[in-house]
Structures are given as structure tokens and as C-alpha cells.
């Protein structure tokens, strides 16, 4: 029993990180209808910059703040340069561009910092408590608090602020929003900046565990895609819940389905994605949109 609970806790921790990257994906999908395959690699690149600043002797807090700033700027610039000109184009065109982003940012990190795995500085101190045979690390608590806080803050932002309302309006009605004075383009830029910052947060949370390397986020992206599909692509809350479900399934599956082994762990998110697409394509929290022909 203690073992089971232990694995559930571990699953929730990693699931929270999947959820936060899924949150970034969902934010972009909601506002621009794009699945950004480059999200993880953009975040890795910014995390490398933060790591480099810390190596040069900057305080961790300063390095992370610089990272947040850079992430926001990067999100905005990438949208403006590579995505905005294609907004009218078909979906597959834009997917190809985001895959290009993935390759380009991965190669840029590889070029500047090399393929070695780097130890990323711990933001959360190494502490843990053991109660009744169950160990809870401060890292797990920290990740949980950060992801829940993020989800609550984002929901509140979209629900209660004028800016949040404007962003929702711009996403829902791109043609009609300008009529009530909403600058759609600015809202989309903000959305990409915000998503990039959230992606950076996911990378910072996962980096101490996985070690920092140019390909660090590739498996994470797979899990996050499954999380976003499970939660429903238009629901931020769904992304976080989906992430946690995927994380717990992965943790339990890897423990109790021993035939999977280390190699077939990756099959878990894929099976989840296929199952969701078969049974409930809109996801747990997604809305089924009805199109009037």
C-alpha cells in the first residue's frame, strides 16, 4: 500500500510538469489553433541561457528572472517572425513550421552548449519527510504548489481581468473582436509570450531531475501532447488534470506492468492518446464544437 501511494505521489509530481508544458501547448492552441511542436525546445534553449548566467556567477533568482524575460521575448518574436505571416495558411503548413522551430532551437542549443548533460541548479532545496513509509520530497511539494498556483492564477486571469477577457475574445472571434476595440494581434502576441514563459517554467522544474541537455524536452513533449489530448485541447484546467493522470498512469504502469520495461514506457502516452481519440475525441474537459454547415 505504501509503495502504491509512493508511486502515485511520484506520478503526480512528474504529471504536474507534463501538465505545465501541456498548459503552454493548450494556451497557444486556444488562441491560434496551432500545436507548437517547438515549445519544449524553445524552453530548453532559454533554460540553457539561465544555466549559463548562473555559471557566470549570477544569483539563481536573477538568472531565472532573466530567463522569464527572455522566454517572453522569444515567444513574441517567434510568433511575429515565423507564425504571424502564415496565420491564413492551412494547419499542416503551420505544423511544419513548428517542427522547424523544434529542429532549429535544438540545433542552436547543441551548437552553443554541446551535447553533454549539465547539472541544473536546484531551486528547491533537497529535503524530504518520511511518514508511515511514504517519502515526500520538498521538490514534489514545490512542483505541486507551483503547478496548482499556475493553473489557478491563469484561470483567474482569464476569468476576472479585462486583459484575460480580451484574450479570450480574440481567440474565440478573431474577426469580430476588433469591432469592440480589441487588438487581436497584440492578444495573440501576449498569448505566445505567456505560453513560452510557462514552457520555461516546466523546463526549469524538470531540469534538475533529467539533467539539462538539448534533447531534454523531447520525451516530455510526448507526454504533454497526451495530457493535452486527454484534458481537451481548449481547456487549461484539463491540461493540468490530464498531465497528472498521464503522470500517475506512467508511474503505476512502469511499476506494475513490468513487461513494459524502460523501453516501452513511451508507449503509455501513445496508448492514452489513441484511447482518447477513439472514445472521447474532445477530451475530458473539452467542448465538442458543432459546426453549422
Amino acid at each position, binding site marked *: 500500500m505504501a509503495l502504491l501511494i509512493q508511486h502515485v505521489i511520484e506520478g503526480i509530481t512528474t504529471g504536474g510538469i507534463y501538465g505545465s508544458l501541456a498548459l503552454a501547448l493548450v494556451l497557444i492552441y486556444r488562441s491560434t489553433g496551432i500545436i507548437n511542436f517547438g515549445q519544449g525546445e524553445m524552453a530548453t534553449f532559454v533554460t540553457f541561457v539561465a544555466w549559463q548566467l548562473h555559471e557566470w556567477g549570477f544569483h539563481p533568482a536573477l538568472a531565472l528572472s532573466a530567463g522569464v524575460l527572455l522566454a517572453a521575448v522569444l515567444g513574441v518574436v517567434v510568433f511575429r517572425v515565423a507564425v504571424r505571416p502564415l496565420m491564413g495558411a492551412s494547419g499542416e503548413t503551420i505544423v511544419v513550421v513548428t517542427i522547424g522551430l523544434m529542429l532549429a532551437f535544438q540545433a542552436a542549443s547543441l551548437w552553443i552548449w554541446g551535447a553533454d548533460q549539465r547539472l541544473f541548479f536546484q531551486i528547491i532545496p533537497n529535503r524530504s519527510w518520511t511518514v508511515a513509509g511514504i517519502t515526500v520530497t520538498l521538490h514534489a511539494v514545490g512542483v505541486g504548489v507551483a503547478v496548482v498556483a499556475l493553473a489557478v492564477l491563469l484561470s483567474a486571469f482569464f476569468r476576472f481581468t479585462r486583459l484575460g477577457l480580451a484574450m479570450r475574445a480574440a481567440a474565440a472571434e478573431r474577426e469580430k473582436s476588433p469591432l469592440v476595440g480589441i487588438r487581436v494581434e497584440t492578444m495573440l502576441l501576449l498569448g505566445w509570450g505567456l505560453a513560452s514563459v510557462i514552457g520555461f517554467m516546466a523546463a526549469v522544474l524538470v531540469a534538475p531531475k533529467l539533467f539539462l541537455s538539448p534533447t531534454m524536452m523531447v520525451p516530455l513533449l510526448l507526454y504533454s501532447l497526451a495530457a493535452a489530448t486527454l484534458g481537451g485541447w481548449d481547456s487549461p484546467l484539463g491540461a493540468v488534470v490530464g498531465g497528472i493522470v498521464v503522470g500517475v498512469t506512467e508511474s503505476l504502469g512502469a511499476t506494475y506492468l513490468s513487461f513494459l520495461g524502460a*523501453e516501452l514506457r513511451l508507449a503509455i502516452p501513445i496508448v492514452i492518446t489513441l484511447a482518447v481519440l477513439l472514445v472521447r475525441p474532445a477530451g475530458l474537459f473539452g467542448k465538442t464544437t458543432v459546426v453549422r454547415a
Partner: protein
Amino acid sequence: MSRLPRVLPWLATGLAVAAAVAAPLIVPGFLLFQISVMLTYAIAVLGLNLLLGHAGQVSLAQGAFFACGAYVFAILVSRFGVPPAAALLCAAVVTVALGVAVGLPALRLPGLQLAIVTFGLAALVPQILIKFDHVTGGEAGIRLRRPVLPGWFAAPLETWNYYWCLAGLALCIVITLRVLFGDSGRSLRALRDNPLVAETLGIDLTRVRLSAFAVSAAFAGLAGGLFAMVNGFVNPSSFEATKSIEILIGAIVGGVTSIPGAVIGAIFIVFMPDWTSQIDISLAGLLYGLCLILTMLFARNGVTGVVRSLADRVVRMAAPPPDARQNPAPPA
């Protein structure tokens, strides 16, 4: 004068076929081997073109299907002594079954879920190859025995393999043309351009897109089988997830709606990494990424698109057709 442009494509095709058939006479053995590998990639790219350029769907698993075909071929030939032609057919058929199993859930929906699912498959297939090592030989892979060439064929093995690849590509080009110039091609393009209207006219979205996906998977399976034959050896490190993305790059760079584009794209992905890796290992990735982004931003139809519009301009400058006003050029 205005007849000239119509003759040109036929002339070019004839020259290309003649050059391809005569190539083994002048090309040295190792280059011929590389060209054969390039032809197998061209087949996989051609399949992706059909899906991407005409069905408007992105598959990131073309390399995974390629691996599937290669392993089916290698296992059948090395374990069961199946003749190559039958093994190639099986490679294509098994790959189609895998493709349909994965594609069906995703293709029922109007969006780009296929990209998500196939992205996962591309990452998973190398793991499966390592995991089931009693079938696939694990990391060590499978080595094929040197085939016995028929007595009437008086040329080296490279030439034999080359002609197999050339025949495979020719077969796939014929199939592509049949698909594109028949009813199915028209339905595909209608779905890509306006799914709502197409469905109203009675085109079954799922069925048409699934069959396009199946054909593209079959091409990749056949290409993989030919690759195993040419290479004489398969192991998981030849089929990492990046292979799928390379095939996508080949399709995009060559031009997604063009058949010669598939060959140009394959040349790009087979020969470009060779010389960039001499400069820096990260250069290929950077170049690939930028190629994808820049092609989409500035030349949606790839190299062949650029060449075609340049050729159009030259022809128009040389001899402006008298009926230019009545028949404006269709928008790109």
C-alpha cells in the same frame, strides 16, 4: 511557339528515365549504392507528398513505417528465405496494417491529430525494435546474406539493387499518377481545400484520408524493404525518430505536390548531412529547421515550385502567349 512548354516536361521525363537506366554504366559502385539509398528515400517522400500535398495531413511516422518495412523484409528473407519480391510485398502490406491501426483513431477527426499520434509512433518504434530483441536482433540488428544473382545478370550486386530501387520508384510514381488523376485525387484535393463542401457533396472524409494515409504507409514500407535489401543490414540506430523528420524535410524542400520534387528532396536529405557533418554536427539540424521555416514562409511549393515559377517567367518573356488576357495564370 506556345507548344514548346508542353513538349518540355515529356522531353525532361524521357531524358531522366534514360539517364537513370544508363547510370550504372558510368557511376562507380559506392556512389551507385548511395543513389540506391536515395531512391528508397524518394519513395518514402513520394508517399508523404501524397498525404501532405493532397490530403493536407502531416505524418511524422514515415521513418517508423520505413523501419517497419525494412525489418519485415529482413526477417522474412533471413529467417524464412522468402524471395525478395514477395518479401517486399509483405513489407508494404504489414506497414499498411500498422498505419491503419494508428491512423484510424486520429483520422476520424477533422484536425491534425495524426501529427500527434505519428510523432509518438516515430519515437516508439526504435524502442520496440530494441525491446523485442528475440525477433529483431536488438541493438545488433539483422545481417542479410549476400543474395545469389541470376545467371543472366552480368553486373555487380550494386547494379542489381539499384535496378530494384529504380523499379520500385517507377511503380510508386505510376500508382501516384493513377491516384492523382483519378476520382480519388479529385476527392482528396476537394477535402484539402474545403472539407465542408466536399463532405456535403458526399465524399467520406475518414475513408478518403485513411486511404491516402494507407498508400503513403505502403510506399514507406516498400521503401524500407528496398533499403534493407540495398544496405544488407538493419539495426535500430538506422531508424531513430529523426529519420521520420528527415523524410518530412525531403517532402517540404522538394515541393509537396511534385513528383520530381520527391527525388530532389531525397537527394537533399541523403547528401546534405554528409557534408555539413564535416563542418559541425549541429549544422544539419539548424539547416533542416531553417529550411522548413523558410520554405513555408517564402516558397510553399519547395524547390520545384521555385523552378516552375522561374521557368514560367522565362517562357512568358520569350514568347507571350496571345491569349494571356483571357487565361490569367492560376494563383500559386
